[in-house]
């Protein structure tokens, strides 16, 4: 009895109405994030990149597919080619802008899929406990035992080149990582008094997970998932760089880097441009994710 009394104040502090509580939580995260100028700067860059991805085809000054044998590998600042041209004479600026869509798509989609899949697997394992937990988590451990780059390349290498295959392999790479976080948070929440109370009052496992578990575990999993976006961007473009992802002539930053690799002795700085875009994207997501994490950690 004394243990129940001792732990009840904390339970009261965490429990109140889930719907209101979650809105208040996100609002306070936003308030703290707003005071972090670096994170806001990164957020602005991320929004700009997303805008590029959405409206790129209308923003590009030239046709990103239009090649020209006469205008091959022009330097940055050439008349009509502000960022030079690639090995087939296509306008680099336009290709970089239009490339945002595919590059962000192949970078973010695996994290989104793994967020859904990993959360479901992690919550099932964490909430069910016992043998189910052991089976799921030991399987996850096996996938976790591969370095992520190796697993991604092994999977997409055997499945064959292509966007869909690289999305599948990256999703498989990230699911164990997210599931681990989801499982550990769920296991913590599961033993809280309010979950016990809900169970005692006859709520079904589905209702308990929906009402009590999800609201408490989604935040930490979300923050963790955002930290994976930068990794995923680098890996997805890396697969294209190896020739395992996007196929030519589609504009995608990793693939552009690959095809321009032979040109580094002719137009080195033009050849390096697609990597700058990947770098800007991954660093913005990393800073934003760090900002989110510290904004969420501070909850008093």
């Amino acid at each position, binding site marked *: 009895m004394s243990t129940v009394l001792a732990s009840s104040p904390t339970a009261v502090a965490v429990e109140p109405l889930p719907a209101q509580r979650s809105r208040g939580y996100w609002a306070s995260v936003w308030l703290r994030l707003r005071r972090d100028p670096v994170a806001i700067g990164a957020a602005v860059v991320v929004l700009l990149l997303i805008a590029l991805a959405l409206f790129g085809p209308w923003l590009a000054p030239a046709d990103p597919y239009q090649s020209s044998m006469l205008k091959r590998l022009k330097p940055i600042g050439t008349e009509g080619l502000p960022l030079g041209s690639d090995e087939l004479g296509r306008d680099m600026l336009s290709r970089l802008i239009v490339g945002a869509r595919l590059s962000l798509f192949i970078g973010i989609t695996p994290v989104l899929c793994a967020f859904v899949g990993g959360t479901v697997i992690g919550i099932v394992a964490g909430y069910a406990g016992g043998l189910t937990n052991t089976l799921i988590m*030991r*399987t996850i*451990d*096996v*996938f976790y*035992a*591969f*370095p*992520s*780059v*190796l697993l991604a*390349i*092994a*999977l997409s*290498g*055997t*499945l*064959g080149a292509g966007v869909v295959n690289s999305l599948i392999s990256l999703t498989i790479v990230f699911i164990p990582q997210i599931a681990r976080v989801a499982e550990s948070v769920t296991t913590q929440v599961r033993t809280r008094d309010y979950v016990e109370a809900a169970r005692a009052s006859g709520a079904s496992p589905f209702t308990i997970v929906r009402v009590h578990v999800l609201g408490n575990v989604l935040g930490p999993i979300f923050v963790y998932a955002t930290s994976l976006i*930068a990794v995923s*961007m*680098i890996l997805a*473009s*890396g697969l294209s*760089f*190896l*020739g*395992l992802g996007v196929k030519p002539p589609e504009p995608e930053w*990793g693939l552009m*880097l690959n095809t321009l*690799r032979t040109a*580094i*002795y002719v137009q*080195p*700085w033009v*050849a*390096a441009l*697609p*990597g*700058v875009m*990947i*770098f800007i994207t*991954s*660093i913005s997501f*990393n*800073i934003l994710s*760090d900002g989110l994490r510290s904004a969420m950690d501070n909850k008093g």
Partner: protein
Amino acid sequence: MLAYLLRRVIYAVPIMIGVALVCFLLVHIAPGDPLVSILPPDASADLQAQLRELYGFNRSLPEQFAMWVWRALHGDLGVSIASNRAVAGEVFTAVGNTLRLAVVATFIGFVLGCLFGFVAGYFRGSWVDRLASMFSVLGVSVPHYWLGMVMVIVFSSQLMWLPATGAGPSGSDDWAWDWAHLQFLLLPALTMSVIPMGIIARTVRALVAEILEQEFIVGLRAKGLTHFGVFRHMVKNAAPTALAVMGLQLGYLLGGSILIETVFSWPGTGFLLNSAIFQRDLPLLQGTILVLALFFVVLNLLVDVLQTLLDPRIARA
């Protein structure tokens, strides 16, 4: 503690079996018949059956897996379809080359990362901290294959200080630790070191900041210990975790070197994987991945054991 270590070792066995199973199944998730890549398109049904028998594809999956593991345990990883040489030998040579690269890269990353991390953690909130933290964010965010290209552009194509690709003046066969060979190692190793640098700097910064807040540091200072004396205590407390992170990073670099090896044409496992993938040489692919993944598992185990030996508190937790 011994019980803990033993438990940890035993726990690695099912993981290893699982890893082997995943590597084994890779060939079977590959689209198409694995025989297609070996056989000429007009091969007779007889020849097909013969080869199926030879590779064991006519048996049930569990049987095939058992056979494959049994052979692997005896050092036989099959024969490369493309080169017709033993996979084990090819992987062995490549692992040596990659290991050389990864160890040097981890060392550079560890030294720089510790330096940045300690400085940042010790002077937390100051401009030094912000600068060091910026470096570590840059390190974890940079697409390293691009950094490799930039390195080649700057140091090989523009300044012409260092060779751009390869692993030695005469190819990859005879390695020596002299300048003629080291200059080939420098660029890829520096490029590779950026990731562990960033991660180790982050870890060490957090560790130092956490240790500095503990009461025994206040106690040591109150006792009148010099800055250096306090620093020594801090290092002792941070070392096990920092070393553990370093060990894991070595494993990640070993498994993730493919992109950098491709940029620098370094004749390691990444290079091997790359050619295996594009020639659809499944035995080679399978063998390389198996060896790298098992290396990673063993390294994880070693790190855990070492960490426990260095910091007995872990076994008690």
